[in-house]
């Protein structure tokens, strides 16, 4: 799948009715709120238009008629209307705002739950950043559309309609002039908005390029300085800032042009009204208050027109967001429980690969007719080059993926007959890059078994060899690990993730050993923890360290999806094949590190 599929900010230009309907459906469970705020905004909008009409009546019926009683009457109505409007504004902000919060909450919840059910294959081909934006910013936009978007649209439409209604009531000939101007206004405004949004989108793209350029230049500053590339880098960066300048300047001046143009169109209508209205006033058809009302209606007609243009432009954006979000919600998990899947209570027993084929992409087979019989309690070491198929084998054991052809049997039973939970809750996994969740160490270990007591957590930590370093921390087991575990060293993270696996009391143990170097002491601790875990359990270990490799019951050299060499450590050494080469090279490297003569005092021996 191509990388560019996940480029941001691609959006469909045409209006998509089906998506729009589905967006509105998100608000349906909370329909009383929706109806409530729509009614409120409708009333407010009529009231806003009525204010102008009231002002006209104050002039005509109060001032011109010289009627103070009538004036006070109208003033009381005006004052009352202000209070009513304010109350309604409070209610609709409250209703729409809450609805927005609820819709966003629902959507995020739905998406997150769906994500938990999706299979590995989905995460392989979908970048984390892409999913993140769907769940965060896209839900925000959808929630915006069903609340503020809908609200602005309703207000603007109702306001225009009622304004036109009142204008017709005052004088229908003049109202016709406004009628003629209205569509022009809306079209011009929408065109402007569209162009401005295109430029804004450009600036956003260039902006991320600029950030990228900074990032690269700062992380590579050593090379830049060593090669004296400063001038040329600046020249290239200048192209980006020029691009940025052009797009954002254009967006800015288009925005600056937008209002005057709309105002000018309105002014032509105003001029026509004054001229024609004045003539009518001369024959007594139109009152002075009427003229004032027209002037006000025209002046403030700009706001609903602008609102409509804005909502229209943003709506396209929101629909594109919705399309992407819905594509996430609609994605089907590939690995699911079969009908009648059972939980046999244990998955102890032999693990058998029977003629398994597997591929991630159709015509690029990773495993082909792969067969392997692992006896209960056996430890299998997997070595071989990257991309050879080691990780695929353990992924299949965990049933993160299922064989495309052939079968995997656990305890004599095709594992697709078992429930996913039955398998995955009984497999302990320790990954090459140990993943921790932000929170205290204790909770990270407890992740292995949620109902474990503190005593059990600590016992597991002791077994895994993590206890000693944990108690040296200032807060011990309550010490925070930081986001993704950044506050701990790689070795410490390994130990914690081992403890987590120990606590889970798995029946099958899978480990992708870390390649990164840790200090000798930690390495020895990890080694011991692993042995504790593997004892008596069927284990699959993707091994990178000598000692792990050596102790396995059977070592498999996997290359191009096939077993190249198989046997015990001694047997394989005798064969003088791939394993032999790998081993001797590693042996030299490890010993050299161990014998570092500069280290003073004498280096700790590897095994303590």
């Amino acid at each position, binding site marked *: 799948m191509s990388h560019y599929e996940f480029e941001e900010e691609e959006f469909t230009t045409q209006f998509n009715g089906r998506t729009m309907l589905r967006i509105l459906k998100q608000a349906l469970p909370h329909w009383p709120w929706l109806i409530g705020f729509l009614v409120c905004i409708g009333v407010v909008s009529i009231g806003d238009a009525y204010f102008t009409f009231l002002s006209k009546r104050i002039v005509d019926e109060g001032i011109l008629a010289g009627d103070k009683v009538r004036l006070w009457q109208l003033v009381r109505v005006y004052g009352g209307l202000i209070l009513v409007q304010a109350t309604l504004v409070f209610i609709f902000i*409250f209703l729409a705002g809450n609805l927005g919060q609820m819709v966003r909450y629902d959507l995020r919840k739905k998406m997150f739950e769906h994500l*938990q059910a999706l299979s590995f294959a989905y995460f392989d081909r979908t970048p984390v950043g892409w999913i993140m934006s769907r769940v965060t910013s896209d839900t925000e936009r959808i929630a915006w559309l069903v609340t503020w978007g809908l609200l602005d649209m309703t207000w603007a439409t109702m306001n225009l309609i009622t304004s036109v209604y009142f204008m017709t009531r005052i004088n229908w000939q003049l109202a016709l002039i406004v009628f003629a101007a209205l569509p022009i206004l809306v079209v011009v405004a929408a065109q402007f908005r569209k162009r401005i949004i295109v430029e804004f989108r450009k600036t956003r793209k260039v902006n991320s390029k600029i950030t990228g350029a900074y990032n690269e230049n700062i992380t590579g500053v050593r090379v830049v300085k060593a090669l004296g590339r400063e001038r040329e880098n600046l020249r290239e960066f200048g192209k980006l800032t020029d691009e940025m300048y052009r797009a954002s300047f254009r967006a800015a001046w288009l925005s600056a042009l937008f209002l005057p143009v709309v105002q000018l169109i309105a002014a*032509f209508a105003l001029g026509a009204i004054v001229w024609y209205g004045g003539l009518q006033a001369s024959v007594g058809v139109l009152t002075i208050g009427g003229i004032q009302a027209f002037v006000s209606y025209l002046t403030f007609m700009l706001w609903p027109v602008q609102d409509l243009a804005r909502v229209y432009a943003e709506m396209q954006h929101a629909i594109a967001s919705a399309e992407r979000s819905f594509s996430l919600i609609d994605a089907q998990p590939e690995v699911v429980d079969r009908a009648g899947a059972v939980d046999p209570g244990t998955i102890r027993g032999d693990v058998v690969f029977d003629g398994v084929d597997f591929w991630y992409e159709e015509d690029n087979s990773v495993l082909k007719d792969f067969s392997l019989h692992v006896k209960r309690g056996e430890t299998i070491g997997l070595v071989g080059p990257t991309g050879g198929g080691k990780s695929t084998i353990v992924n299949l054991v965990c049933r993160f993926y299922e064989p495309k052809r052939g079968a995997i049997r656990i305890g004599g039973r095709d594992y697709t007959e078992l429930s996913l939970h039955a398998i995955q809750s009984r497999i302990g996994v320790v990954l090459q890059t140990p993943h921790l969740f932000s929170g205290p160490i204790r909770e990270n270990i407890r992740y292995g078994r949620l109902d474990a007591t503190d005593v059990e957590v600590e016992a597991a930590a002791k077994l895994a060899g993590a206890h000693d370093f944990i108690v040296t921390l200032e807060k011990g087991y309550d010490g925070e690990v930081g986001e993704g575990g950044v506050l701990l060293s790689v070795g410490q993270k390994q130990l914690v993730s081992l403890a987590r696996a120990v606590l889970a009391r798995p029946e099958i143990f899978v480990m992708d050993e870390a390649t990164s170097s840790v200090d000798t002491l930690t390495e020895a601790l990890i080694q011991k923890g692993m042995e504790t875990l593997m004892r008596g359990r069927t284990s699959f270990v993707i091994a990178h360290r000598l000692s792990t490799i050596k102790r396995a019951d059977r070592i498999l050299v996997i290359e191009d999806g096939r077993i190249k060499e198989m046997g015990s450590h001694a047997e394989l050494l005798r064969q003088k094949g791939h394993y032999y080469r790998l081993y001797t090279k590693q042996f030299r490297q490890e010993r050299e590190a161990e014998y570092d003569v500069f280290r003073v005092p004498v280096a700790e021996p590897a095994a303590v």
Partner: protein
Amino acid sequence: MQTSRDHFDFKSIVSERRLVGLWRMLSSYRLAYVGAMIGVALSAALKAGNYLLLRTFVDDVLANERFNALPLIGLGFVGLALLQGLFTFASGRWAARTAESVARRLRNYLFDHIQRLSFTYHDHMQTGELIQRATSDVDAVRRFYADQAIGMGNIVLMFAINFLALLNLHTTLALVSVVVAIPILIVSVFFFRGVSKAYDAFQDQEAKLSTVLQENLTGVRVVKAFARQAFEIDKFDRENREQYCLGRRLLLWHAIFWPGTDILCGMQMLAGFVVGSLMAIDGQITVGTYMAYAGLVIWVIWPLRNLGRIIVDVSTGLVSYGRVFEVIREDREPMDEGAYRPAGNVWGEVVFEDVCFRYNGEDGAVLHDVSFRVEPGQAVALLGSTGSGKTSLVNLLPRFYEYTGGNLKLDSVELKEYPRSILRSQIGIVEQEPFLFSCTVRENITYGVGRDVSDEEVVAAAKAAAIHDVIESFPKGYDTLVGEKGVTLSGGQKQRVAIARTLLKDPRILILDDATSSVDTETEGEIRGALERLMQGRTTFIIAHRIQSVMNADLILVLDRGRIVQRGTHDELIGREGTYRCIYDVQARIEDELQREIGEGQTSEAWETSEVSEEATYVAL
């Protein structure tokens, strides 16, 4: 249009006083910016003119029945709108030009500034922090010019001009109409301050939610492996719900502020209407005056609500300026400082005399009294453990850091006399895992060569670096992108690209920083060959910790904690007691051990590592 190549020295003008600094940064756009402000004022005045024209229309034309003036009045409205539009547009355009130009100038300056700051600075500054200052803080400064200063000017001018127009209509009426101005201002500042706090809390929660989501996505294997989906859903729901609550709190602020100020502003308007219309009925003012008043008063009252927001925004703009200022005031590495300019290339004779070095602001010296001499074209090897000072020593040569004591001479001239730019053009560095830029392979090879390079030269260099065949195997050959959006190169391949790059650069002095260790077995031979070709005829510094990498050097220096503890050629050192012999012996012993293990492995599987290694360690020392 100003080009991006204008060199504007921000460092010489920035000021700790933020408003002064912001004003000075406008240099050469001040006229446009002041023009923009004047445009705002004029268009506000013209808007007020609209209502005054309305008064004329009502009082003079309608009341006096001079209907032949009607077309003139109509044209007057169009003319006012035209002028007003013109000024609005002009001021918007000028403000945009100013803000965008200053921002572009600032971006270019910062980019250049950052890449020219010293290593000492980069060592202590986090990349993310620096990027944030160069991007979002610069953008906040841009918004200060584009939106906040202009917006504040707009509201203040609108208030002032319309208020003057009101005063012109009727003094009492004008004064009655601005009673709520001050309370509204206070309420709105208070509100926007509160809202920005509530908003920050909301955003923080959004960040927390994102963290949970991101950890869940990156740790999807762990989640699935422990079948913890339900637990994760609960965790996410807690954060999601918390955000829902914070969102509602934020909402409440808005739900109270807007209708509340609606009432304040609405009542103020109504009060004006009442006073005005009573005066009109009593004949104190004309009907036209009342109507002009009713129109103008709107522009005095309502914009005040937004002033609070701008005042709060301005403070964030000022904070951003302060953060950008902190970067700008740092000193650059003076690239061209230094009196000596060699004619052509240097020879490459390097002499260290009692050179000492310590990092800026740190107590312990990293190098103590280092003395040695390298003839042009010779290879000197530096052997030592991590932290022994090898890398610090070679970092002195391109003047990445300045030595703090002793003399360091290149071709008998003190290194400090050489401008850094010249020095660096004479030195090539190949690192263990070189940094490649995300551009094409060709661009990476020609990166920093500083002259036009023909395709033939690039290919020749790639061949000499034993990378040509690899490049040809890519679908797009030399035009293949490197990095995230293109191919990922292995450590060994990156290294050979760097070797090709250095071959093209053709420096007199070469630094091989751990370039010979820990590459994949298959390519080790090729890289070694490529390196040997590269070293020919150049003064070479080899950093290594394996004997094999340094055996052929003309001079081997064994470093320990910043001091040279042994020196000589391989043959000399091997015959002497000392660290070098120790390393050599250890490596020989490892081979013995390996053979023994393989032999033993063939007979017995039980073999304990610990015993042997312990014993071996004691023998080694």
